[in-house]
């Protein structure tokens, strides 16, 4: 049999096959499969697979130390949430598991040269040698050695003081603008060299806050939970989240906080609302009285741009709705208000009798040090260090960072030669300004310590347990100190060789003291330390997310209260910009702003572009916000790029208009920087913070500025 296949047969077959195929499900299934296949290219990220588990730790990204529950897949955290019911993590905390993968994470030590886009890879040994050489030079008289600690109170902080104890010219200072920095002024007023008190915000009925971001977690007060029982009066020039949340907002002009505080004191005394028995008869009180005599409510109101009734009402509320407490805060991005303003503000507590009282300033025992009473290098404030005198600055940003103008540090460096070495997980923030940066393990890759935060009424400690293995190349800060000690011939006694072993020593001391309790975040249950047989049990409880708290000790040792903090009549001297009228034409007051959460870390998750770039919620760094009336008077429209000029230089900024901004003020978003959000930028590049030249009081909360075309 022979088939006679013609061309026509082939064509008929092909046509029939095509029609038949089109009528079948096959091409449509192929289209569906093609759609699915093209959405699974190899470069499309695949979520992880693996066993699901829940682990607990403590957030170490700011001093608050919120308990964290981590959802893990295959042992890797994929989501973080608050471990205690009813609480919530901030945007920084809930994205903390992204930080070990941050694009600007340091994978090895680097040397940074100004102007070079990329840092040069160096070895940690080289950095140790250079640091040791600088130490030897300092000992030979080339200058002093300063360790700038961005998270004071840790065991590592103590270790730095121990390391440098043998160097006469060495000091350890807290980085500028950290939370609680303003309490140094209260320290001076209560005549103590180291803080042995806390702020009992939780038991206060009225809180008068000058710039403290209380609604953002400052002082670890859960304002949302306390709304029914506490009244908040916020004094600050910006309509911040705290000002919006406050029961009353006093929009005092920048730099006039002292005037407002002194006028409130004037009312308290004039109306006999306070008992001054404890303060009368001291030299400082006579000076104080002479100062506040010059700040009548009318005068202060005119200076601050407030109504006199606001000052009267605030004073009366403080006196009648106690216990009341008055705090001076550090504005995120803007830093402290300065010693005179802080003294005037905290002086109200002394006047109200808030010291050593529930709901006020309470005494607390200090957290035990990790080591014995060996000599320690003294603590100092950065502004106490003479300018141009420092040969070596070591910035310990291994546990966090701060937001401050670099000029505060730069002015201290010796012109004869100086070295800046930073320890940080990221090449951003303080580390980007150093000569050398050494990589340390970030949050979740190592044990971090959360010592007593500045406002806590009792000593406490929590540990942030690691959820990830430490990546190769990361340097343990205490191990780095040991290397420096060996290279520089410094004595660093003690068995501890790593951060973990040092913290264990501290925990062991706490256990030996046998007091206090460990509270579990899961159910709030408390276990007495005395019931834990070994320090390992205490260690395990802390690593499981628990927090040790000392027994309350509300009794402060007798002390002289210095209501002017030694300033005397200088307390009444206000910054020039607060009183100079009229001001030069076109002069504005530049007020930096940031949010508390992202100001505590040198790097934040790139996902936070949702807040800073992909929406207008927080504004991106370098955005200047002006009142429309002020803009119209200067001839500017919204959306323009203008030049912002201060005494420190000029920078192009984008202009936005907002009726909520005080006329005559330009608010500038200062953090987080683009490098903090993950963008690759030249390290040490100029930032908006460089325009904020600190005044004589080492403050940068308000500086004079001009906006120009271009």
């Amino acid at each position: 049999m022979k088939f006679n296949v013609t061309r026509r047969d082939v064509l008929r077959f092909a046509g029939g096959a095509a029609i038949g195929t089109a009528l079948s499900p096959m091409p449509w299934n192929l289209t569906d499969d093609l759609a699915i296949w093209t959405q699974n290219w190899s470069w499309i990220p695949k979520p992880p697979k693996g066993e699901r588990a829940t682990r607990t730790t403590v957030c170490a990204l700011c001093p608050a130390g919120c308990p964290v529950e981590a959802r893990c897949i295959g042992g890797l955290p994929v989501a973080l949430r608050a471990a205690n019911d009813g609480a919530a993590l901030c945007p920084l905390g809930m994205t903390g598991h992204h930080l070990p993968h941050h694009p600007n994470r340091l994978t090895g030590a680097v040397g940074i040269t100004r102007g070079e886009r990329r840092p040069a890879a160096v070895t940690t040994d080289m950095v140790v040698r250079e640091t040791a050489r600088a130490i030897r030079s300092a000992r030979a008289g080339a200058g002093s050695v300063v360790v700038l600690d961005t998270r004071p109170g840790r065991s590592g902080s103590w270790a730095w003081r121990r390391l440098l104890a043998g160097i006469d010219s060495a000091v350890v200072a807290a980085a500028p603008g950290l939370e609680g920095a303003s309490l140094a002024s209260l320290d001076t007023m209560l005549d103590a060299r180291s803080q042995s008190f806390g702020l009992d915000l939780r038991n206060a009925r009225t809180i008068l806050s000058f710039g403290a971001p209380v609604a953002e977690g400052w002082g670890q007060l859960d304002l949302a939970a306390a709304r029914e029982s506490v009244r908040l009066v916020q004094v600050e020039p910006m309509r911040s989240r705290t000002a919006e949340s406050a029961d009353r907002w006093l929009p005092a002009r920048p730099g006039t906080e002292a005037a407002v505080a002194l006028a409130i004191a004037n009312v308290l005394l004039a109306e006999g609302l306070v008992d001054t028995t404890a303060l009368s008869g001291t030299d400082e009180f006579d000076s104080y009285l002479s100062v506040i005599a010059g700040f009548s409510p009318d005068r202060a109101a005119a200076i601050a741009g407030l109504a006199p009734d606001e000052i009267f009402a605030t004073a009366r509320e403080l006196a009648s709705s106690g216990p009341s407490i008055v705090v001076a805060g550090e504005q995120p991005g803007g830093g402290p208000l300065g010693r005179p303003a802080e003294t005037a503000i905290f002086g109200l507590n002394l006047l109200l009798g808030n010291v050593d009282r529930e709901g006020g300033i309470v005494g607390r025992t200090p957290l035990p040090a990790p080591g014995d009473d060996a000599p320690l290098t003294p603590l100092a404030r950065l502004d106490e260090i003479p300018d141009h005198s420092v040969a070596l600055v070591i910035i310990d940003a291994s546990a966090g960072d701060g937001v401050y103008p670099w000029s505060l540090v730069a002015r201290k460096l010796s012109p004869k030669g100086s070295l800046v070495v930073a320890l940080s997980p990221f090449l951003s923030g303080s580390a980007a300004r150093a000569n050398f940066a050494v990589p340390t393990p970030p949050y979740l890759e190592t044990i971090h310590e959360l010592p007593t935060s500045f406002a806590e009424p009792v000593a406490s400690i929590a540990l942030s347990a690691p959820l990830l293995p430490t990546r190769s190349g990361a340097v343990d800060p205490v191990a780095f100190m040991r290397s420096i000690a060996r290279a520089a011939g410094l004595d660093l006694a003690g068995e501890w060789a790593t951060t973990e072993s040092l913290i264990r020593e501290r925990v062991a001391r706490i256990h030996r003291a046998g007091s206090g309790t460990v509270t579990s975040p899961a159910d709030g249950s408390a276990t007495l330390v005395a019931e834990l047989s070994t320090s390992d049990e205490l260690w395990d409880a802390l690593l499981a997310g628990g927090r040790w708290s000392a027994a309350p000790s509300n009794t402060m040792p007798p002390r002289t209260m210095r209501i002017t903090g030694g300033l005397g009549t200088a307390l009444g001297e206000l910054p020039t910009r607060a009183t100079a009228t009229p001001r030069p034409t076109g002069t504005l007051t530049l007020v930096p702003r940031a949010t508390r959460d992202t100001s505590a870390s040198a790097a934040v998750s790139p996902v936070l572009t949702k807040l800073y770039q992909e929406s207008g919620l927080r504004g991106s760094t370098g955005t200047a916000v002006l009142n429309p009336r002020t803009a119209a008077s200067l001839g500017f429209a919204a959306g323009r790029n203008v030049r912002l000029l201060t005494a420190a230089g000029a920078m192009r900024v984008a202009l936005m208009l907002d009726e909520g901004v005080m006329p005559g003020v330009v608010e500038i978003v200062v953090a987080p920087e683009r490098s903090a959000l993950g963008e690759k930028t030249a390290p040490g590049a100029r930032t908006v913070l460089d325009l904020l030249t600190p005044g004589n009081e080492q403050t940068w909360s308000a500086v004079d500025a001009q906006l120009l075309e271009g």
Partner: protein
Amino acid sequence: MVIDLDRCNGCGACATACAVENNVPPARPSANERTGLTWQRVYRASNGRQFPENRSVYFPVSCQQCEHPPCVSVCPQNAVDVSPETGVVSQIPVRCLGCRYCMTACPYHARYFNWFDPKWPDGMETTLNPDVSVRMRGVVEKCNFCHSRWQAAKAKAAAAGKRDLDPADYVPACVEACPEKAIVFGNLDDPRSGVAKSAKSANAFRLLEKLGTEPKVFYRSDRAWVRRLADADVAVQEKEATRG
């Protein structure tokens, strides 16, 4: 969902939690407010008065899960669907061809387009939520009330032999993350639920109600000037006030 605008302080925790839960990638350097991906976006509006009488309100706006969604009727691909069980308006990425008609149709600006393939920094893909698929370029995406969490709650109920899920097991990420407890979520059809009662309160309102989309997201505020904003386009108002 009912959002209490008198409690919302604009912290952005809801927007952040949403991005983490739903594998929304970080922005490229060139992205801005128009091209970004923000399933939950918090807008700021004001009472229009001058300083110091100026007051702000923060509006978290996600897909309003309309009962009569305009996006469903315009989609040529049937890539948008209203679930008869939950009332959630779901977006099906594998069917979407990226014409963006739905984005034009949505009066709430609650839909976002993937202009590029998603990219996370090296290693960060290990932090992705395995319960949510990653979308590729060319498709639209939007809030779906954390559908994966609904699935997980259903699975948990089924494993326990129950037909209905436990409301406590199905909480969208934004609700869980809010520190002020400003967002309440639940079954609007259950008159005993907190969300149903809040939605019926005198000070509750919906955005652009006159359009007849019947959103399932309600807002409430004791402030009359906030309630008057209901008929304004919040996104446009913020833009006009700040950028001219």
